[in-house]
């Protein structure tokens, strides 16, 4: 198994991006569940769950956005390192 230094930067970049994308996908599934549960509870007349759900959903969106910035950065880093060579 090659060490981390032997793996080409492009492959390493793709692995990092795949990891970030998996995390985003998991957060998205939780967000979809949260939205459907909140809607169900709202339609049932229980309105107290709306504010914590909105806060958690906002947090998850911020994490997703942070991961997107990470992906964008990895992408441009790999591109620049390929351009330097």
């Amino acid at each position, binding site marked *: 198994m090659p060490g981390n230094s032997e793996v080409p930067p492009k492959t390493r970049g793709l692995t990092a991006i795949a990891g970030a994308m998996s995390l985003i996908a998991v957060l998205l599934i939780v967000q979809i569940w949260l939205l459907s549960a909140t809607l169900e509870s709202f339609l049932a007349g229980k309105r107290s769950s709306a504010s914590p759900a909105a806060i958690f959903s906002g947090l998850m969106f911020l994490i*997703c956005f942070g991961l*997107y910035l990470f*992906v964008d950065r990895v992408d441009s880093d790999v591109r620049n390192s390929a351009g330097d060579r």
Partner: protein
Amino acid sequence: MNWLRRSSSEPLWKEEFPVRTADERYVTRRQLTKFLVLTSFGMFVGNLWILFRSLFYKPPTHPQQTVARLGDLPVGGVKLFTYPTSDDHCILVRTAENEHVAFSQKCTHLSCAVYFSRESNRLECPCHNGFFSIADGSVLQGPPSRPLPRIILEKRGNELVAVGIKVS
């Protein structure tokens, strides 16, 4: 805010349409990530919308409407009516000599019309076999997760009058 800015010297169109296959993989992954994050934003907006509706919720006022005369229905009898608007179909059931109950006829799963089953003494939805209690409209079985909205009835002389809707 340097970390937000793309530091590449290449123009954007060159980044989006690369010549090498290896670079193409990056573009597709970046675009998918962007799409996922936009979807996440959509979910957040949906939650904000529910929060907005909850904060500015005003309980609706319902009209009073005579739905039946006390002697009209036999025990176990059913009458269909609309309340509060002509698009809201409801079902009235005489469950005992001096007891009437009324519920919205719209199943809380996918809005099929529920009917009263005398044999099982419950309200049933024929679409996906959702069963509701005749006593309080709660879910007994099936895919619906919410009880049926109950029509509040008042006896006024010889008449049954619908005065409101209880969603619980």
